[in-house]
């Protein structure tokens, strides 16, 4: 085996794939639109099959690409993964070296899988994946050489499955790893009492939990959730150093992303910061993710309110 040879997974396109693609293409008005639907269908079909091999649950019938009224109007090739989100499966023609994303698929996607078609439409190659947040700012074109490995796809899917449900916190059900701040901050120079006391006076109905996270160095992520009178929750996120250090590592970044992967807020530790924090509000059922980045290490936690 020549290790320099680019190696991609191959998915066979059986007659069933072509029959589906034909059925969907036949509904369209023009050959151009029909071809687009045909190729989109093949791409979605291939990724659906590939994910089945890996035992990842998919729901073709909840996908826009499998919905007549949507695929007719939009250039969509999404595949719904239950309790994970939609991935967009874009066909790449043999002579293309980039994915061109129509504007309708630059939202509500957790990421993009590139599917290389061949002149003979018998097999496709799964070229790679880009998470939605990696293309923010330049969402229209993804060059093939910017694609990440399928490991990133697998991580993204599994992270979304294990998202932390903050509503359950109100009922006293906490996700693994989230402990009372006293416990999580036991090793911190500051006593946990000092850290949490400053909040207890004004916000008696808030719930705080903390998690020790390793970004190359151990830090503590403290999440304080305060229900308000409406369906809105106030959220305060703080990051403290752990391991008996006084200051946060310099350049540690804390970023909040909304459900579509847009960075909403960001802060960064400077020299000798004891802690950094972000405050925001979330609607009921809103999803967001928190990214902690230090040097090469980047840890993401997903939440749903």
């Amino acid at each position: 085996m020549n290790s320099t040879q680019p190696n991609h997974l191959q998915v066979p396109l059986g007659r069933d794939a072509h029959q589906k693609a034909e059925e969907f293409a036949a509904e369209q008005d023009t050959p151009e639109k029909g071809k687009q639907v045909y190729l989109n269908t093949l791409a979605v079909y291939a990724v659906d099959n590939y994910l089945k091999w890996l035992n990842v649950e998919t729901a073709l019938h909840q996908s826009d690409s499998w919905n007549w009224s949507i695929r007719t109007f939009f250039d969509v090739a999404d595949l719904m993964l239950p309790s994970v989100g939609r991935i967009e499966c874009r066909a790449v023609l043999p002579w293309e070296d980039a994915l061109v994303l129509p504007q309708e698929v630059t939202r509500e996607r957790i990421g993009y899988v590139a599917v290389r078609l061949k002149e003979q439409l018998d097999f496709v190659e799964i070229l790679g994946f880009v998470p939605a947040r990696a293309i923010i700012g330049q969402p229209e074109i993804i060059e093939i050489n910017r694609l990440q490995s399928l490991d990133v796809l697998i991580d993204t899917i599994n992270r979304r499955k294990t998202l932390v449900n903050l509503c359950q916190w109100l009922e006293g059900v906490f996700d693994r790893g989230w402990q009372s701040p006293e416990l999580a901050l036991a090793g911190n120079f500051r006593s946990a009492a000092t850290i949490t006391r400053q909040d207890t006076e004004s916000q008696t109905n808030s719930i705080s939990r903390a998690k020790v996270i390793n970004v190359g160095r151990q830090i503590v992520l403290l999440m304080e959730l305060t229900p308000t009178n409406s369906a809105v929750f106030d959220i305060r996120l703080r990051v403290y150093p752990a391991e008996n250090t006084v200051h946060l590592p310099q350049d540690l970044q804390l970023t909040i992303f909304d459900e579509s992967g847009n960075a909403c807020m960001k802060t960064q530790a400077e020299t000798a910061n004891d802690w950094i924090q972000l405050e925001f509000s979330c609607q009921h059922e809103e999803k967001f993710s928190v990214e902690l980045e230090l040097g090469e290490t980047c840890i993401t936690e997903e939440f749903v309110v």
Partner: protein
Amino acid sequence: MDEQLQKLIEEVCLYEEGTPERQKALNKLLMIVQQLPGIKKDGHQDYLEALNKTWEWVCRSIDKFKVNPGDSLQNSLVKWINGYLKWRIKDLYVPDSKYSTLSLDRPISNDEGSKVTQLDILPDSQFQDITLDLLDKKIAEIQKRSRHTWGERISRFIEKDQSRVLRHCCTRVNPECNCQLLAKRLLLVKPSHKIADIAREFNVSSQTLYSHWKKKCLPLLREIGVILRID
């Protein structure tokens, strides 16, 4: 090669079905196994479906794979995979299976009432021969055959907007920026206009326009699409 395969198989088996670790290991294993020479091929039109089933089976069953005594791991693995694939291919040729092929000489009636055989009406190109090149032609044909030109109906619906439902769905700041106008500019016109350009033209912020399009117009269009489809 044997060593590499051995390592990858062991890695897969280390983890439970459905875990990300197993999925990643399967990725690596499949990439190599798919390239191994000797995987059975067949000319049946449903061979690729059989192959697809086989890869799914390999992912589920690799834990049960054992090297044949006296044979290399690579050879054993290819034989093991072919053992399953062979049966899936056999299924294709069994009469009465969903894959059973009709006799090509079987006489059938065509629309004009004259007798032709299955062979006569077979398309010139079998599906395996469908290529990107031929796709335009093929699609034009199937569209012609198909009476489902629903998209055309929807375009007409948008243009006419008889009940004015689309024109009533407008932004608060500018009634001209309504669902009908946006649908025409963004969906019917090729290439579609950019939201930012429309925003400039009507002196509305693109954010407003974008969220109106997404939150009001798209759900409305979807609803209409579904209704027309049911009609």
